[in-house]
């Protein structure tokens, strides 16, 4: 049994925030953003939009393309690290907004690796016979959790959502998932975090206002990402006995252009095979790989077929992993 990909979708909010629009930072520092991150602009959700709204837009586009009704979904797995609220799960809100009355709903938080975690879990449930159709959505509104005065984090990130509808198939006629790997290392928990808002440090016990915002150790995260990202590509090749030369598309988490370039160099793969959209959308955390996959599938002038695609992500936890997608 395989999980075939019936359709994809994505949603980027309308508001474009260019680097020059970040006027809270010194004008002389603005050129550093593009050179250090590769980001030229990003999208911010409207004041009345929250994560579930972005998720629903991507999900509706995906369902419309598939021809499958929301009522025919068995499950919704939503990857996010910027939920509407700590509880209930944002996936439950999405389920209600879609009218997916037969679907279970669960959130997955593996920060930027969330999309890959959600896909791997959905695939496992389908292959185990627990569900026939699972909608995987990844949605983030990082603009609400960033310290807008922190130059080391704010310029990197943007808001967005991606979706993928998986369906059980004995003999896939669509692109399908054919394996994957997931990893974690909690000893790196301090490298990417929002310290406050949970049981360890409730908001009422803040000792520093910055504890409520996203924080990242840039140097440590860069080293982690380039090391583990390259490792996952090699691991997926071994898992499926695929020679790297057969890889047609690589969709890596859109963290930073220098991370992608370093991984390309370390794996000996041409950067041209790596899908890049972070220049327009920034780092959309868990949503980045699903947005990039949707754009690859729906916006290329040449139909993507007879190819092998790896989706690879790395993020807070620390967590990292990858998915193999074969395109018949």
């Amino acid at each position, binding site marked *: 049994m395989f999980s075939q990909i019936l359709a994809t979708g994505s949603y980027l909010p309308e508001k474009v925030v260019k680097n020059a629009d970040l006027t809270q*930072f010194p004008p002389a520092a603005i050129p550093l953003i593009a050179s250090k991150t590769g980001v030229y602009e990003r999208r911010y959700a409207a004041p009345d939009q929250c994560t579930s709204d972005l998720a629903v837009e991507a999900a509706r586009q995906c369902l419309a393309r598939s021809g499958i009704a929301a009522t025919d979904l068995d499950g919704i797995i939503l990857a996010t690290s910027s939920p509407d609220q700590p509880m209930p799960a944002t996936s439950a809100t999405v389920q209600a907004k879609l009218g997916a009355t037969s679907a279970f709903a669960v959130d997955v938080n593996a920060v930027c690796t969330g999309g890959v975690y959600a896909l791997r879990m959905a695939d496992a449930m389908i292959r185990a016979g627990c569900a026939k159709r699972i909608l995987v959505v990844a949605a983030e509104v990082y603009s609400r959790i960033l310290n807008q005065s922190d*130059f080391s984090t704010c310029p990197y990130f943007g808001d967005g959502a991606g979706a993928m509808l998986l369906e059980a198939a004995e003999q896939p006629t669509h692109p399908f998932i054919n394996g994957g790997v997931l990893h974690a290392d909690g000893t790196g928990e301090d490298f990417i975090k929002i310290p406050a808002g949970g049981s360890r440090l409730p908001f009422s016990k803040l000792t520093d206002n910055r504890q409520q915002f996203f924080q990242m150790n840039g*140097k440590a995260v860069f080293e982690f990402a380039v090391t583990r990202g390259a490792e996952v590509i090699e691991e997926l090749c071994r898992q499926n006995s695929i020679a790297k030369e057969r890889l047609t598309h690589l969709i890596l988490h859109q963290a930073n252009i220098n991370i992608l370039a370093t991984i390309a160099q370390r794996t000996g793969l041409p950067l041209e095979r790596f899908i890049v959209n972070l220049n327009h959308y920034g780092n959309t955390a868990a949503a980045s790989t699903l947005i990039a996959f949707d754009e690859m599938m729906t916006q290329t002038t040449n139909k993507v077929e007879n190819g092998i695609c790896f989706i690879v992500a790395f993020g807070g936890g620390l967590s990292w992993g990858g998915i193999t997608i074969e395109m018949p």
Partner: protein
Amino acid sequence: MKLVQQAIGNVFPDCDASALTLESKLSEIPDWDSMNAINLIMEIEALSGRQNLALQFGPDITAGELVEMLRAYGINV
């Protein structure tokens, strides 16, 4: 160099800013990178009340060199 130590302590909470000397290299501060260097400039501007400080940080800049740059702006460090 109280202002410099205060700014560094505010931007880099894992750094014992009081232990910094004029010979201390900024690149050895935990979490130091080119993006956080901008945060330090912004913090110095906030603490000194001065704006648009055109500070250039070389890879081996020391706290003492930063102090001298700020004194050139007439900032009481």
